[in-house]
């Protein structure tokens, strides 16, 4: 097996292992910190796919932003002393069955479908191309994204503030 394949399987194992910890851990703090491994592993997968800019965005926004936000929420909403019992799960067996059937179906479909193939697989820097496309083909969604973020910002502040009652 060549080196690239070994590294791919390592990164994939980190991703899947961390995601499994998120799904199965009984302690929500462990779940939250396992999310770090899952996000970092996905960033590594992006690097494998030649998506350097997306990998950087993944690290910046997911690991640097969303994960910190989730950790804050965990710390703010739990009495740290009884944290061990706070990550309860219900309906494990039916959930497991549904998910296993779905996964088998997905894998079957993935293996049998003749996916389109690109003429050539290239590994080039993508930032310049992405920047060009954001300001040309995808200008409207790009501007809408700023509006969505502004609305989310205001909405989050309004929702999370302490209400002062008369």
């Amino acid at each position, binding site marked *: 097996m060549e080196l690239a394949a070994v590294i791919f399987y390592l990164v*994939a194992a980190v991703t899947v292992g961390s995601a499994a910890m998120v799904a199965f851990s009984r302690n929500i703090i462990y779940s939250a910190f396992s999310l770090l491994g899952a996000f970092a592993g*996905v960033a590594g997968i992006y690097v494998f796919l030649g998506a350097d800019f997306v990998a950087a965005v993944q690290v910046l926004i997911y690991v640097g932003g*969303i994960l910190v936000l989730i950790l804050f929420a965990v710390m703010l909403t739990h009495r740290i002393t009884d944290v061990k019992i706070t990550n309860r799960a219900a309906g494990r067996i039916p959930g497991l069955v549904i998910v296993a059937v779905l996964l088998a179906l997905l894998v079957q479909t993935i293996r049998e479908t003749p996916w389109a193939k690109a003429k050539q697989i290239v590994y080039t820097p993508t930032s310049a191309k992405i920047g060009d496309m954001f300001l040309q083909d995808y200008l409207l969604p790009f501007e809408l994204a700023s509006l*969505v973020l502004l609305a989310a910002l205001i909405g989050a502040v309004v929702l999370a503030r302490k209400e002062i009652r008369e």
Partner: protein
Amino acid sequence: MAIGLNHYLILGAIVFSLGLYTVLTRRNAISVLMGVELILNSANINYVAFAHYSSGGVDGQIYAIFVIMLAAAEAAVGLAIVLAIFQLFHTIDVGAVETLKE
């Protein structure tokens, strides 16, 4: 066997299944949000994999960036709602919080 498109798609499917399992079984609202993040990540893996192996362009990567942006907005608003629910009900068990007002 060289690493190809199928490897990435199957990895995405596994991460999606784990995320779906988290969403289905957890009682804790924050854990449910973590599951949603896993599902969004698996979708992004598929976008970028198809961009790399099937189209050869960067359109898929742009969609992945939009998904990451929406995930950030969703996490901010979702966790703000969770905090508001916690202030009101002193629990974030999704089974216990079933009314829309006090």
